[in-house]
């Protein structure tokens, strides 16, 4: 799967509409636990009920922003590189890739791959597909990834990408779900076409309702795409999704309502898959605005609420505590040993005093558009903070227009981030000085320096050290409160089998359930 950049847009609309919640009582099946040991079998019609999807979804890869569009795309397309279920890069359309200096990247394009239309894939198609996301006129959400790219050209069977500064993680960016390889004509892709080289070919599609796809008989991966046919259904209402699964109308649903997991289990008609990943919920504070411009105030707030309580009550246990760290436990350089922040009113008071205050009054502007339960989470924080002399007023904002009028406009808000496979992506997207989505407007010279240095550092041990130092800086000096990592919670009918390891990169096995799962 892929990941990247589009962090949040991803489920924003769906959240708005369906009020999803992740959640329940305990990790029923942690990532990586075996669900079925059978060998993959071919055949069957796989129906997935997805809590996203809208009549405005399009075939333009730059605009994919919800789980439906992402899963539908993963069924039709391949990317240069895939992120395997284990989190490592795996070759897809790029057979291999190398770089001598971290700046010039050579991707060897796989031969003998054909599009659904019968056209043979060439390096020119790859260049056209990537260029769609590059340049001033591009409307792609993946555009920022290409800011550093100075040249993309064909060299025999290879595509050569040149960037303006060394970046050891550059290949990870090429796994982004926006970067589908599509057929090009005169250097341009047709953004209204469903043609791809993925495992399934579109039979019918009604935006916001359903898509039916048949297996691509010429798919180059012989060990993938096991279903004869897949049907992707938009079911926005969580109860309707659950009903569809229980009555056998669909085989898998995403975003299971926490309150219903017990019911599902007691019926025995389905199994729950709860995958811990890097996705997390955040409360960003505008680091330019008083009182948040004082790190002591920020620290006081970070010590003034109970993280475990939020995990238990907001996620119903389907998640884990975060130490204000945007790098999750599924990351390579996750800093697990960092000093944990617990609920400590005395420490909070101490930091208030350091800031020259006895009491503090702040307002959180929250809406469930940020994440399901955001308003409740803010209220829980406000209750606990009172003991530290901090009065938090919770201002409930409307879901509609939240990202326009509240997020990055008001000083203290709620927000969320999907997980990314690479530390650099997360930091560059949301924590580097001046980044478009730096939602706290935070700026730290030391952090910025480390970020650039770590990109081109090839010594594994040194990189780890640098990334862990960055995590510490964000945690203790940053302007973002990060209480928890949220799990991806799905429910599968008993007939569905998955590989032993299910990806924790994105929901639905990194959107690739359609090509990785099978009927047992």
């Amino acid at each position, binding site marked *: 799967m892929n990941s990247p950049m589009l962090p949040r847009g991803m489920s924003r609309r769906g959240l708005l509409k369906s009020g999803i919640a992740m959640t329940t009582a305990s990790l029923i099946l942690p990532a990586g636990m075996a669900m079925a040991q059978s060998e993959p079998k071919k055949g069957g019609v796989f129906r997935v009920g997805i809590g996203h999807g809208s009549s*405005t979804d399009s075939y333009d890869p730059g605009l994919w922003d919800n789980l439906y569009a992402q899963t539908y795309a993963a069924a039709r397309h391949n990317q240069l590189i895939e992120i395997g279920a284990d989190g490592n890069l795996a070759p897809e359309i790029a057979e291999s890739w190398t770089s001598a200096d971290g700046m010039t990247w050579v991707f060897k394009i796989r031969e003998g791959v054909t599009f659904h239309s019968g056209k043979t894939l060439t390096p020119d198609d790859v260049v056209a597909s990537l260029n769609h996301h590059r340049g001033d006129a591009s*409307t*792609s959400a993946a555009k920022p990834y290409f800011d550093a790219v100075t040249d993309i050209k064909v060299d025999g069977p290879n595509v050569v990408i040149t960037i303006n500064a060394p970046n050891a993680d550059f290949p990870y960016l090429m796994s982004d779900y926006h970067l589908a390889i599509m057929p090009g004509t005169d250097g341009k892709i047709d953004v209204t076409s469903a043609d791809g080289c993925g495992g399934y070919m579109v039979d019918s599609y009604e935006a916001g309702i359903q898509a039916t796809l048949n297996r691509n008989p010429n798919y180059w991966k012989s060990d993938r795409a096991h279903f004869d046919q897949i049907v992707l259904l938009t079911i926005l209402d969580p109860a309707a999704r659950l*009903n569809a699964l229980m*009555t056998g109308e669909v085989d898998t649903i995403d975003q299971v309502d926490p309150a219903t997991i017990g019911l599902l289990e007691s019926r025995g008609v389905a199994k729950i898959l709860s995958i811990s990943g890097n996705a997390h919920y955040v409360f960003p504070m505008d680091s330019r605005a008083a009182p948040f411009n004082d790190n002591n105030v920020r620290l006081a707030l970070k010590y003034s609420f109970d993280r475990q309580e939020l995990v238990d009550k907001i996620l119903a246990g389907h998640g884990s505590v975060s130490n204000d760290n945007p790098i999750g436990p599924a990351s390579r350089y996750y800093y697990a040993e960092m000093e944990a922040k617990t609920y400590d009113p005395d420490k909070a008071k101490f930091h208030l005093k350091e800031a020259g205050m006895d009491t503090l009054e702040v307002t959180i502007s929250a809406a469930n558009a940020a994440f399901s339960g955001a308003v409740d989470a803010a209220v829980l924080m406000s209750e606990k903070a009172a003991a530290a002399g901090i009065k938090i007023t919770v201002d409930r904002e409307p879901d*509609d227009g939240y990202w326009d009028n509240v997020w990055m406009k008001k000083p203290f808000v709620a927000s969320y981030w999907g997980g990314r496979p690479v530390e650099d992506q997360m930091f560059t997207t949301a924590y580097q000085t001046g980044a478009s989505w730096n939602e706290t407007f935070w700026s730290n010279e030391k952090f910025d320096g480390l970020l650039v240095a770590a990109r081109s550092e090839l010594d594994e041990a040194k990189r780890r050290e640098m990334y862990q130092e960055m995590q510490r800086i964000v945690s203790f000096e940053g302007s973002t409160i990060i209480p928890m990592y949220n799990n991806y919670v799905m429910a599968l009918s008993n007939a569905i089998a998955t590989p032993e390891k299910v990806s924790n990169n994105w929901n639905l096995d990194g959107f690739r359930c359609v090509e990785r799962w099978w009927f047992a």
Partner: protein
Amino acid sequence: MADIWRMIGRRLLLGILTLFVISLVIFGATELLPGDLARELLGQSATEETLAALREQLGLNDPAPLRYLKWLMGVLQGDFGVSMATQKPIAELVGARLGNTMFLALYAAALAIPLSLVLGILAALWRNSIFDRASNALALTSISFPEFFVAYILVLWLAQTGIFPSMVRITGSTTFGDRLYMSFLPALTLTLVVTAHMMRMTRAAIINLLASPYIEMARLKGMSPLRVVLRHAVPNALAPIINVVALNLAYLITGVVIVEVVFVYPGLGQLMVDAVTNRDIAVVQAIALIFATAYVLLNLIADVMSTITNPRLMHRR
């Protein structure tokens, strides 16, 4: 008869004027919504540059009155334009959904109208009997619950037991019979929701007439109670019944988004919610106009039919 045609003509003109005013109101309301299509399409990932590029592409930089006029000119020529979000013609986008919505509305009406008329007439006939009280109580109970609650109860009783499907999946190859079967639960939900209104109006209108002297006369002639009601009372009670039926039909077409969501029914309501959320204003306006047209036309039909059934209305000076 000429009077009728003159009335229809006048009502149609008034209806068009109403629609024009409604289109202005809708446009104004959508302008007041925060954010725009470019912002919604790009989501949280929007940066100033991508926003500017997309706005330029979509023509969102024109002033509002100009955008409104352009759209109105298109509509007058029968061209609803293209969806700004998907670049597909709106007629195509709305067409299939409109068909689905009409199917569900007619299906529910086909169940609800005979049911409520029969119940209403029988209740009037056996006024204050157990039957009257029971049917009233049931109808009022079902109208008093929110739609989604009625829907979930039906799902619990009829879908989880495997009798009817809990969701509607209409594809190109769905046969008419399958369609009736799959859409039964949403149609039943809507039937339960609208029956009370029509049934009670029927009952009240007939009971009202039963006190009239001419009904007394009919009785004295020795007619059976059923014949008195069907032959003498119902024709004179038609005007109020037609009006309430028209109102409920309009509701079935325009007000069923919750039922659509619960049963995953691909109707116009869900499309409109999508379009509002995404600020796809051209689609919102097209659907609002369709809904407004449904109201205007149904009211017109109701007026004409009440007039026809009551000759006094045709000859008043």
